[in-house]
């Protein structure tokens, strides 16, 4: 099955081979870039369709079924509509900042995708410090949000962009620290090494993924919460809270620039889910050894679609958090929990030597306990539910 697995790699080598050696470097860079943009833009179209159909089915509706069979051409229709729509720039807006904002919002998200290993030796750029590159690109995205908010000189978009930046900054720390846990365990910043460290199978069956370790599970959950906040998805979709500030920083945009913003948001979503898969769910490894014959890139994109389905499910169900609750949750719950997780992985590292009979299990339970107890304490501090909601409702005759 190696042929199918390495299909794309051999395809690229064949393509690069066509050119004279002097041009080969440029061509291989171009082919990788084209592959990334092509694949993820296609995935973006599928996700918009999936989102509309999924949300509809959650809400007892049909979802698009008029444009093409089962509404499959709906993303095409949306794209054409975005292109045709008139592109209005508010008269008082700051032209340059207003037009540059979508570009600054989209480009970093796509660049971040370059670092994620999609399949066996199928990674566009194998940086030694891949993780730092990913988070650097995450940082640049915020400037795009600010430029959009400030550029359109509108109170709602100003409020939206301020909320957006505050949210992104305060959730960047838990995101980076929960990813740091894996770096400490694996010992390298390069994503390819992290995926290779998760190769192999426990007792021949279960894959050796990080998520099956206590600190991995904790890290995964924390990472997912921070990722939802970082990519502005419900229940943290405050910057573009429709019912309050309409479309937040994207308010004064129409036509193609508005579509660019959504492209940026979804690329951010793919990037963050891709990173979660690489760090905790074993990148392109199969979960069980007997399933290993399926090509590697199919595993990666399969998991990515599952993540997208999870985000859509979340978006259909949960209401939105308020701005101050969001911040309180970030600093009072996420940051302490992530620090505890660092301690847990250190404990895991130093108890690696316990190979006696109950050692593995005891080690697992010990780390899990070290994580779970602070979780209970912090949850009580932040949550409102347990002690204050017993409302007694009198019934008058």
């Amino acid at each position, binding site marked *: 099955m190696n042929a199918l697995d390495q299909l794309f790699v051999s395809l690229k080598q064949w393509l690069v081979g066509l050119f004279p050696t002097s041009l080969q470097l440029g061509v291989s860079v171009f082919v990788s870039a084209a592959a990334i943009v092509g694949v993820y833009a296609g995935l973006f179209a599928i996700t918009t369709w999936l989102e509309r159909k999924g949300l509809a089915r959650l809400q007892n509706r049909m979802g698009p079924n008029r444009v093409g069979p089962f509404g499959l051409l709906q993303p095409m229709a949306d794209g054409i509509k975005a292109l045709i729509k008139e592109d209005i720039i508010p008269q008082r807006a700051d032209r340059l*900042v207003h037009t540059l904002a979508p570009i600054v919002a989209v480009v970093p998200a796509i660049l971040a995708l370059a670092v994620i290993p999609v399949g066996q030796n199928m990674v566009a750029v194998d*940086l030694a410090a891949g993780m730092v590159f990913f988070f650097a690109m995450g940082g640049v995205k915020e*400037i795009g949000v*600010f*430029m959009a908010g400030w550029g359109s000189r509108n109170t709602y978009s100003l409020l939206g962009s301020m909320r957006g930046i505050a949210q992104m900054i305060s959730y960047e720390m838990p995101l980076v620290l929960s990813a740091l846990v894996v770096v400490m365990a694996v010992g390298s*910043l390069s994503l390819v090494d992290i995926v290779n460290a998760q190769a192999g199978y426990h007792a021949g069956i279960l894959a050796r993924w990080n998520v099956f370790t206590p600190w991995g599970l904790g890290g995964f959950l924390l990472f997912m919460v921070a990722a939802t906040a970082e990519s502005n998805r419900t229940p943290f979709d405050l910057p573009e809270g429709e019912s309050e500030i309409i479309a937040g920083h994207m308010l004064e945009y129409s036509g193609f620039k508005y579509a660019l913003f959504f492209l940026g948001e979804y690329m951010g979503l793919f990037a963050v889910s891709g990173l979660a898969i690489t760090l905790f769910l074993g990148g392109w490894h199969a979960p069980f050894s007997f399933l290993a014959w399926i090509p590697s890139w199919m595993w990666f994109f399969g998991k990515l679609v599952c993540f997208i389905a999870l985000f859509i499910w979340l978006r259909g169900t949960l209401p939105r958090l308020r701005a101050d609750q969001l911040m309180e949750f970030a600093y009072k719950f996420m940051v302490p929990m992530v620090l505890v997780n660092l301690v847990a992985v250190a404990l895991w590292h130093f108890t690696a030597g316990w190979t006696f009979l109950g050692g593995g299990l005891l080690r697992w339970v010990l780390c899990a306990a070290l994580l779970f107890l602070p979780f209970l304490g912090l949850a009580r501090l932040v949550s409102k539910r347990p002690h204050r909601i017993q409302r007694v409702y009198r019934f008058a005759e």
Partner: protein
Amino acid sequence: MGFVFPLIATLTVLGAVGAMSFRKSIHAALSLVVALLGIAVTYLGLGAEFIALVQVLVYVGAVAILVVFVMQLTRSEGGQGEGMAVRPAALGVGTAGLVCGGLISCVVLLPDFRTPWPEKADVGLARLGEALTGDYVVALEGIGLLLTVAIIGAVLIALKRPNKEETPE
């Protein structure tokens, strides 16, 4: 690939000049971001890949946003358009020109800056890590302490004290 450095250098200088001369301070902040990105790319040119990434992460990701945030808070992004105050500008630019001229002259005159680049092993991250936690661990802990103290100090200074001393009306 020789043309890369001059292009990036001019971009950085233009960004820096913009950062200092735009009337609207928001434009100044955004052109500072351009300058910082230019410097990050020059680091890549020099082979210090990790530093370039850290530079983008710290400066563009955090410092620029902080500056822009404070501009919003202090309502100075409108830019009263004070631009370069004429009289002191001559003095300021003059002294800066002198300092910069001195630097450039010593760079141009001293011969030993023209020697070719030696072979440099790629700085492995692992070696960097060991050095940091090895013989430079004191500096690492020092920078950690410094950052925490700075954050706490910043919060205390900027804290909005509604009651204690009312701003004189």
